């Protein structure tokens, strides 16, 4: 099997194997570690072998359902590489951090499954394949919340699932519609991205189909006003699921906008861009301000994630090279930071059995290392210099100013928004005198440090030497810009 | 000649349907089902004789065989159901319904 297929199918096969072969939980964890480590190794090799200047690489093409033009068609470029790497890096680290906590087979099996699903969705270039993996990655999360979640988990996971499936079905309809249109125009069926982008649609058709896709992505990201599943779901989800959702799946929504919508409906994307920039900016401020009043840590971080994802959407729809590179960079940067933060919230809950900000406090005194890392990752979300988020935000703001000076000013408020709630939260959770809940707070254990230190170093490296990472993304962005030859928006 | 057989068959079938719908005892319901089967058997045999074609008679013999095995199955079901609820009232066994 070639590289990309290993990335996609090794975790899925391992998950199915573990599902049918009931063995000791310790062995399950070992197999999990083994598989994710192999994936990490293969991804690192992919990163090293990746040629920044080639458009789409490691392409694999195998005929699957010939009559309907559905094929196994995968490939990687600068933007998908980022998510692949994040997926590969985060999954083993999650296990390193949590291996003592979770003694359920299903937990690890579902995580493996979702890893394969995400890889597949990121890498596929065939719309049917993409739809398949898009749904595959949803199901494990549904079960994880339902089985291992907190609070009203059944209601929440149902709501999340219904919401997401509503979107994906609209997307499926859109996919089938354009495939049929392709058949009418070219005489054969095809679901390949590169074939489908050649079809011509009237503007009404194109807007309808666009909306079908956009609904799926907007729900997954989420964009205002499709966000109401978010904070409840994050609140109920177990740590592993919430990391996958915030760090990877939400990013997949933004990634899919770039990969599919911009390729398939170039003109429509342009025509509607101002609305989505507006929605994105509104979401950025709306979610940020909403987060100020949250009392529950996970809900606060959920809204914080949503705020940043709205910023990513803005960066994509601005559609110049700074915005595109900035957004792609922010996807990766925010994935690391939010994964680390949710991981730490998980540790916090394990120690204190609470998620409420008001009942915490004084952790810095009893657990300095925990406080250090927690503050570091929280600040990296705020986007202080020397962290990856800062680079990405500067680029998006630059792109926004390039688009329009007023949009630029509103986008620049991102450096204020996250601060509004993050600093108060840091003060309340970490500082002050320890109380009854936190006075016996155990500092980070060795295995938890093993999980967090690489993430922290990565955030720093991406903030201090961004050029080394961005040179992999930039040619892809340039390629997109050139391919479009879009008339540049006048200021 | 056929017409009379058919009328008898229809009468039997109607009795079966009415019994199936209106009676509550499971055993009686089962008897009604048997009646339905036999009505069909009767018409099959009559049509077969009328058309001088034996295949319908073969079919009806198979139906009788199946009905016999059904009888065994039903008997055991009655026992299980009666053990569960100490009653054979069909209205009690409505777990498939959407009542909350």
């Amino acid at each position: 099997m070639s590289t990309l297929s290993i990335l996609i199918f090794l975790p899925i096969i391992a998950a199915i194997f573990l599902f049918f072969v009931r063995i000791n939980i310790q062995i399950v964890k070992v197999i999990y570690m083994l598989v994710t480590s192999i994936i990490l190794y293969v991804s690192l090799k992919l990163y090293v072998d990746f040629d920044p200047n080639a458009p789409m690489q490691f392409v694999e093409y195998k005929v699957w359902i010939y009559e309907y033009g559905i094929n196994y068609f995968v490939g990687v470029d600068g933007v998908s590489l980022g998510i692949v790497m994040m997926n590969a890096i985060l999954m083993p680290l999650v296990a390193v951090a949590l291996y003592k906590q979770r003694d359920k087979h299903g937990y690890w099996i579902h995580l493996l499954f979702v890893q394969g699903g995400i890889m597949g969705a990121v890498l596929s270039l065939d719309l049917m394949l993409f739809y398949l993996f898009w749904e595959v990655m949803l199901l494990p999360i549904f079960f994880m919340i339902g089985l291992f979640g907190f609070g009203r988990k059944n209601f929440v996971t149902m709501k999340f699932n219904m919401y997401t499936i509503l979107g994906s079905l609209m997307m499926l309809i859109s996919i089938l519609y354009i495939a049929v249109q392709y058949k009418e125009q070219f005489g054969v069926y095809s679901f390949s991205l590169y074939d489908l982008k050649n079809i011509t649609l009237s503007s009404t058709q194109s807007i309808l189909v666009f909306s079908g896709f956009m609904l799926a992505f907007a729900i997954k990201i989420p964009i205002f006003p499709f966000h109401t599943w978010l904070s409840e779901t994050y609140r109920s989800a177990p740590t592993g699921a919430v990391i996958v959702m915030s760090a990877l799946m939400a990013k997949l929504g933004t990634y899919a906008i770039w990969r599919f919508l911009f390729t398939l409906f170039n003109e429509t994307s342009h025509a509607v861009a101002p609305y989505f920039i507006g929605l994105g900016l509104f979401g950025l401020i709306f979610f940020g301000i909403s987060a100020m009043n949250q009392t529950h840590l996970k809900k606060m971080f959920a809204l914080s994630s949503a705020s940043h994802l709205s910023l990513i959407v803005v960066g994509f729809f601005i559609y110049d090279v700074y915005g595109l590179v900035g957004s792609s960079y922010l996807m990766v940067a925010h994935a690391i930071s939010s994964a680390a933060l949710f991981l730490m919230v998980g540790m916090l809950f394990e120690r204190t059995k609470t998620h409420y900000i008001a009942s915490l406090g004084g952790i810095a005194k009893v657990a300095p290392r925990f406080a250090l890392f927690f503050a570091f990752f929280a600040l990296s979300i705020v986007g202080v210099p020397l962290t990856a988020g800062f680079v990405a935000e500067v680029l998006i703001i630059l792109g926004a100013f390039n688009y329009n000076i007023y949009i630029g000013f509103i986008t620049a408020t991102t450096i204020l928004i996250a601060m509004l709630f993050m600093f108060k939260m840091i003060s309340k959770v970490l500082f002050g005198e320890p109380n009854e809940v936190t006075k016996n707070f155990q500092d980070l254990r060795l295995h938890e440090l093993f999980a967090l230190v690489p993430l922290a170093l990565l955030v720093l490296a991406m903030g201090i030497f961004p050029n080394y990472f961005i040179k992999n993304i930039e040619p892809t962005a340039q390629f997109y810009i050139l391919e479009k030859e879009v008339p540049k928006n006048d200021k | 000649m056929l017409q009379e057989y058919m009328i008898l068959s229809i009468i039997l079938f109607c009795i079966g349907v009415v019994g199936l719908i209106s009676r509550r005892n499971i055993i009686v319901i089962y008897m009604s089902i048997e009646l339905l089967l036999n009505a069909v058997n009767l018409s099959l045999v009559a049509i077969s004789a009328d058309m001088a074609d034996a295949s319908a008679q073969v079919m009806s013999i198979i139906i009788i065989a199946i009905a016999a095995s059904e009888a065994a199955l039903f008997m055991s079901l009655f026992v299980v159901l009666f053990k569960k609820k100490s009653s054979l009232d069909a209205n009690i066994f409505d777990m498939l319904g959407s009542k909350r």
Partner: protein
Amino acid sequence: MSDSLILNILLLSPLLSATLIFLLNISISGVKQYIYTSLALAGSGISALLALYLSYFSYFENQVFTSHLFTWLSIEDFIVEVALKADALSSFMILFIAPVSFLIHVYASGYMNKDKSYGRFFAYFNLFIFFMFLLVLADNPIIMFIGWEGVGLTSYALIGFYFEDIKNTYAGNKAFIANRVGDFGFLSALMLLFLEIGSGGMSFDAILSNIGQIEAPMLSLIAFLLFVGAMGKSAQIPLFVWLPDAMAGPTPVSALIHAATMVTAGVYMVARFAPLYNLTFDVSLFIAYIGAFSALFAAIVATRQFDIKKILAYSTMSQLGFMFMALGVGAYSTALFHMFTHAFFKALLFMGAGAIIVAFHHKQDIRELRGIKESMPALFVMILIATLTISAIPPLSAFFSKDAIMSALYASGHAPLFLMAFTASLLTVFYMFRLVFVVFYSNTKQVGEANSKSMLYPMTVLTIFSIFAGLLNMPEIFGGNLNMSNWLDIADKKFIVTHFDELMLMSINTLAIIGVIFYTYKRYAYTNTIDKESEHTLVANKFYIDEIYSAVVVKPLYALSILFDKHISNNLIDNTIHNLALYYEKLGLLFSGFENGNVRNYALYMLVGAVSGFIYLYVLLRAAL
């Protein structure tokens, strides 16, 4: 040693020592204190020595040191190099930043003695110096912005250093948030600058040589936004609210960050963009007036404060106002000169205040610190000299710098500016001597603990600097030749003041100051006037600025948060969705009555279905039959 190596070591040695201390501190507990001390002093000492070396060559041989480390970002035209450049202005900045930092390090090793977070303190402290060097040595404004935010971040960490009291961390939050509002302006300005002329390169030289290409309104906007950054960092109206609260940090922090170095970054930045501000008169004038109002406002508030550090904090804000006045009228090197002298005497004042605070077990209220002259004579002399310096008594250093500002304001022809500056400078004398007379000249006597030598020696050095720093930029009238201004070679506006006018100004000024000192002496020395001053007046409550901000900014934001989260997200959107689901369910209930689990009913439905099927077939086939 090559030029670039010197710069790199100068920049990175504090970072290295900060990293080492940090790693030691979090990985091993119970590290001996002297290890931290030596690491911290080595980090700052090396850079102090190199800074002196650098400014020596810059001053005498006009040498420009450059260093290129790596490329930070390169996307299309947006090419940001991590490059350092020590031209005259940067050399001048590190000339006082590095030595003062080193001295305050020495002082802090005494002040923080036996503190349980000793290591953490020095890690942050050295990290701060690193960011400060990055700020002043950066060759392009983006890297400068990284340093700019970095000092804000370390300042946040140090203000909230004693985090057990959550109020301290709130003060840190306030500082960082106010600073970031400024950074919002700064960053926007940088983005606009790049989009206008960035293709020519983002180094300061390239930008400043290309600013002529920008149209006037855009240039004004950029200049204004840059100044918003300066407002935040240098605590000017309206973003000053954080500075008084920032005094929650340990006193060495206040001395280094909130008096001598970080808060002057705004002045440095405006001076750095001097050619830009020379083209935008309206913005320059705006800066001058903001400076004037800040100077006056802070001076007024300082007259009714009781916390020794808060008085000094407002004094810092007031002195920064003076600098911005000078910047606004185009006397850039004069402003820098005052910044230079201010760094020494204000650091000295803070260190003196810190020494008193340590000696009297963290009492900070001047009403409780009365009559301590006899027990600490050396401290008294040093604080008195610093107070005379800030009051601009000749021939102490600030006399020259402040006088240069006053004559520049006088010559610029903006009478309101001059009058405000004059009033503020007299108020400065008043509140400083109020402090001195209340604390040292009292009928009651107190004895505090003796201060350690590591605290007193740096103060002695700074006292000497405070006295003589004025020599660097002697005006012609005293036989000097403005060495510093010539060295810096900034695009100053030239003001012509006749020697007679200048002498007149000086003498009036000095006489007025001496008059104020006498008045203050009468009022506060050996009296109880201070006890009669109420804490509840408008002035003592800082004109209720904090309360106004809370009512105008903070509370509405929280109200908005509740509106967004509870009303829009939950009630409007989520309830709509839930209701949709509910109606759908109700619709289902309507039909689910049929499905009651009763087999006989199902048979009936079958019958009904079959019969209606038959009827349909009959109707359909009737014609054929």
